[in-house]
C-alpha cells in the first residue's frame, strides 16, 4: 500500500554524473523493498510540470532522528530532474510510495547475478544486501557509457562476491556492454537467477541470456508514467500471462519488475496482434 507524505530533503550530494538525494519519507521507507520506486512532485505547488517523476529507491534507513529516510539517485535529464538536483537541505518534497512490485526474492540459497546499467545499479544495493542475508551468492555486473556514469562501484565491490565493470569507451573495466560479459559471469558462478535494472535494450538482452541458460530473470523496466499508481494506463507493455495470453500490463503496478521471459521485449511500443483486445482489421 502506497502513501503520500510530505518529506524533507536532508542532503544532496554528487556522485559521478549523478546526484544522490536523501529524503525523509516517514511511513514509506519502513515498508520499501528492493525494486520499489517513489514518485516525487516537481516544481512546487503551482508548478507547470504536473506529472510526478519516478525514481527507484536506492537505500532506506528506518531509524534515527528523522524517522524513516530514503536515498534516490538522480540523473539529470530534463527540467524535472534538474529541479530535483537543485534542491537544498530542508526543502520540502511531496513523495508518493512505495510503488510497484519489488524484486521477488528466492526462498532457497541460490546464486544470483545482479546487472545494472547506468543509474540502474541504484536499486541493486538493497537487493544485494537482502540476498546475502538469505545466504545467496551475489555477483554483480555494472556498465555505463563512461566511468562517470557508473554508480557506486566501490560500495558494490563490498557487497558482491565479484564485481565486473564495463564501459562503452573502456574508461573503466572492460570495453563493451554488460551483456557482453554476462554470459561468462553466469556460467562461472552457475547462476540460478539474474536481477537487472537499466535501459530496455539491456533488459531484453539479459532476459534472453538468462533464458538460454535456463535461469530466472527479474527485470525492472522504465516506462514513461503519468500517474505511477495504476489509474491512467500510460505505462503499459506487452506481457505474456501464465495462461499464455498477452496483455498490455501497467508497469507501475504490475511492474516495474517483470519476469524477463514474460515480457515481449522486441514488441514494446506496439500492440502485438495477438494481444487481448488488440484492434481487429478494419475495426478500431
Amino acid at each position, binding site marked *: 500500500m502506497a*502513501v503520500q507524505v510530505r*518529506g524533507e530533503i536532508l542532503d544532496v550530494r554528487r556522485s559521478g554524473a549523478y546526484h544522490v538525494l536523501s529524503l525523509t519519507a516517514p511511513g514509506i521507507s519502513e515498508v520499501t523493498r528492493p525494486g520499489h520506486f517513489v514518485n516525487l*512532485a516537481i516544481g512546487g505547488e503551482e508548478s507547470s510540470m*504536473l*506529472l510526478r517523476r519516478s525514481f527507484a529507491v536506492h537505500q532506506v534507513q528506518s531509524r534515527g532522528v528523522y524517522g524513516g529516510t530514503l536515498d534516490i539517485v538522480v540523473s539529470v535529464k530534463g527540467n524535472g530532474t534538474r529541479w530535483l538536483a537543485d534542491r537544498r537541505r530542508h526543502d520540502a518534497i511531496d513523495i*508518493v510510495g512505495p510503488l510497484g512490485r519489488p524484486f521477488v526474492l528466492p526462498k532457497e540459497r541460490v546464486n544470483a547475478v545482479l546487472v545494472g546499467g547506468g543509474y540502474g545499479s541504484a536499486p541493486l544495493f538493497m537487493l544485494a544486501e537482502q540476498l546475502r542475508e538469505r545466504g545467496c551468492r551475489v555477483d554483480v555486473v555494472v556498465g555505463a557509457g563512461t566511468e562517470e556514469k557508473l554508480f557506486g562501484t566501490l560500495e558494490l565491490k563490498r557487497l558482491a562476491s565479484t564485481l565486473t565493470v564495463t564501459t562503452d569507451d573502456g574508461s573503466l573495466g572492460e570495453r563493451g556492454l554488460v551483456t557482453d560479459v554476462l554470459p561468462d559471469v553466469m556460467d562461472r558462478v552457475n547462476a540460478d537467477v539474474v536481477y537487472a535494472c537499466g535501459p530496455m535494450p539491456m533488459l531484453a538482452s539479459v532476459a534472453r541470456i538468462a533464458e538460454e541458460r535456463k535461469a530466472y530473470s527479474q527485470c525492472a523496466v522504465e516506462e514513461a508514467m503519468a500517474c505511477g499508481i495504476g*489509474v491512467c494506463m500510460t505505462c503499459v507493455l506487452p506481457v505474456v500471462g501464465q495462461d499464455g495470453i498477452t496483455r498490455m500490463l501497467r508497469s507501475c503496478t504490475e511492474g516495474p519488475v517483470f519476469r524477463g521471459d514474460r515480457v515481449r521485449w522486441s514488441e514494446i511500443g506496439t*500492440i502485438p496482434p495477438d494481444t487481448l*483486445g488488440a484492434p481487429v482489421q478494419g475495426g*478500431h
Partner: protein
Amino acid sequence: MTRALISQGPLPGQDPLPPVDMSTRLGDLELPSPVVTASGTAAAGRELDQFFDITSIGAVVTKSVMLQPRSGRPTPRMAETPSGMLNSIGLQGPGIDHFIEHDLTWLSERGARTIVSIAGGTVDEFSKLAARLRTVRGVAAIEVNISCPNVENRGLVFACETGSASDVVQAVKRHSDPRMPIFAKLSPDVTDIVSIAQAVVRAGATGVSVINTLLGMVINTDTMRPHLAGTTGGLSGPAIRPVAVRCVWDIRQAFPDLPIIGMGGIRNGNDALEFILAGANAVAAGTVIFHDPSSPMRIHNELQRALAGHGFSRLQDAIGYAHRPADPEPEPDDDFDFITE
C-alpha cells in the same frame, strides 16, 4: 531548523472546516459532495482509496468501459505539456463483463457512489452496454463518452455532430432503466457546444459532463517525429481550464436548469469554485490526480473553505452565481463634496 517536516498526508493540519452544506443535485441524483473523479483518471477507484476515503467524495466516475476487452494504443501514450499533458490511451480496458464482476462489485461493497462511463464504436454497442448495466446494481448514473470515433461514419467522433450525438444518447436512454440519470460527456472540439448540448438533452440526457480533452499534438524535436505513437492525443490539465469554464458558462446560459458536471484543469478549491460560479452543479478532478492522488478530497475541503469565505452557507446558492445581473451602479452621492487639494 533541524526538526524534520513530518506530517502525515499531503496537507499540514488545518482549522476545522467551516459549516457549508456541500450537497448537490444532478437531476434526481443527490450527492453529499460536488466533487467527483473524471473518467479515465481514477480507474475504478480502488487505487485512490489508498490515499483518501473514496466514499467521502460525491462519486467515482469510472474509466470509460467498452463491450469487449480492449488493448488500447501503442506507447508512448503520454507527453507532459506546459500545465497539462497529452494522452492517447485508446480506451484500454477489460470490457463490460469483467468491469461489472470485478470493479463495480468492489465499488458497491466499498459503499462508493459510482457513475459508470461507457464508450462504443457504434450506436448498437452503446445500446448493448446500457442494456447490460440495466441488469446490475450499484450504478448511480451513466456517463456516455461520446468523444469516440464512430466506426460506421468514417471514424468521425460522435460528439462532433448533433445527429450522431443524439443517436447515441437516445439509444442509451432507451435501453436503460427510465429512472437512470444519463450524462453525455461533450467534446470541446466543436464549433458550437451549445447545439450539441441541445441535441443530447432532446435525446433524453439528464445532464452533460463538460469537457473532455482537446485534440493536440507534440513533435519530439530529438527524433523529429510525433512524440505519441498515436500521433495526436487529448490535452488536459490547467492549460485547458479557461476553455472548460467558457463551455460550462455557455451551456448554463442556454439551459438554466440543466445538471452540469464541470471539469478541465481543476487543481484546487478555487478552480472548482470557478466552475461552480460558471454554472456547474458538480466538478470533476482529473489530471490533478496524477499530481496529487489525494486531490479530490483536498479540493472538496478547499472548495468548502472558499464558499464559506464568500459567505455561502450552501453550495447550491453558488451554482451559476457569476451569471447574476450586473450589480446596480452606486447612486451618485450629491451631498458629497470633493476636496481637491
